[in-house]
């Protein structure tokens, strides 16, 4: 794989033809990391286990770095002060944690179970938030714009939905969740498969939403910058537009982390405490 700088010059030489290929290449996963133009760090892990490629890729590295950042924030920078009001980064983290615990977990899962499951959803929130924000920093790449990453996150939600449903309602009660009361018995023949499909469609929707939001936003930014390659100096005003979309992406990074956590909590809460 050639470096980013030569890619850009190739794209410039052949006009706007290669811009779209260049954009797609840059939001995708790869085997090497380009922190700066012209600098390529090969991650080249050719490590196969049971026929599955488990070598380190760019997005896997981003996941590890995000884990490190979250650990740094909560393991080292967070200082618990029970005698006086928190300040600095501790204050910011406590505000976010309280928001997730009270507005998301307790709201959708219930007082007791919500507080018990709060660490689980806090993991979701901060992991997705850090991954989204890392995608907006030039050094890093967006791991949440990779469908495998978001599917992995959504599979954790699916597992939690199934485990939560079985633990709270029992095995028989779990399957009764798919038989809503108040409908004629004959309708169950159609309704049961549909409700069972709903169990898998919910995490699938979570997957697509986060993946497409992050991918879409980054493609828009790249395409606006690509106008410069297509139109030369006349494309320079698109920088302002790209900056606007960048700030929109900052907002979207927070909103998507919030939505992912909230919908996960809602789905898990529905399985644990069926309203119908």
């Amino acid at each position, binding site marked *: 794989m050639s470096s980013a700088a030569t890619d850009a010059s190739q794209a410039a030489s052949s006009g706007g033809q290669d811009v779209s290929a260049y954009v797609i290449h840059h939001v995708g996963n790869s085997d090497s990391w380009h922190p700066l133009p012209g600098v390529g760090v090969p991650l080249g892990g050719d490590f196969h286990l049971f026929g599955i490629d488990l070598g380190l890729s760019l997005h896997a590295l981003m996941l590890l770095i995000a884990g490190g950042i979250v650990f740094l924030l909560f393991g080292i920078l967070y200082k618990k002060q029970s005698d006086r009001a928190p300040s600095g980064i501790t204050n910011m983290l406590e505000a976010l944690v309280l928001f997730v615990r009270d507005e998301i977990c307790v709201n959708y899962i219930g007082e007791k179970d919500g507080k018990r499951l709060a660490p689980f959803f806090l993991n979701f929130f901060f992991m997705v938030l850090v991954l989204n924000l890392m995608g907006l920093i030039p050094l890093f790449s967006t791991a949440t714009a990779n469908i495998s990453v978001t599917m992995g996150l959504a599979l954790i939600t699916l597992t939690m939905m199934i485990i939560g449903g079985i633990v709270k309602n029992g095995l028989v009660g779990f399957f009764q969740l798919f038989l809503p009361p108040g409908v004629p018995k004959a309708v169950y023949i159609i309704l049961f498969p549909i409700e069972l499909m709903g169990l898998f469609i919910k995490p699938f*929707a979570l997957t697509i939403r986060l993946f*497409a939001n992050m*991918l*879409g936003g980054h493609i828009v930014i790249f395409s606006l910058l690509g106008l410069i390659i297509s139109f030369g100096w006349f494309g320079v005003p698109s920088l302002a537009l790209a900056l606007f979309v960048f700030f929109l992406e900052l907002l979207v990074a927070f*909103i998507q982390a919030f939505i992912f956590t909230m*919908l996960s909590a809602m789905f898990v809460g529905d399985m644990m405490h069926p309203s119908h």
Partner: protein
Amino acid sequence: MFSAPGLAAIGAGLVVIGAGVGIGRIAGSAMDGISRQPEASNKIQTAMIIGAALIEGVAFFCAVLCLLALNK
């Protein structure tokens, strides 16, 4: 007559129409609700964001399909 990128672009436009109408209706109704009952604005806003996110999910799904068609 139509090329694949052109059709993908038209598809993306249709997705925007659908999602715009859907999210617009949700936001409009939320505005109505909030102006009638300002004290319930927090709950209405949360419900609005959930509904908008669900519509947005479908819209993005279609947008991804358009993107896949574009790269064929």
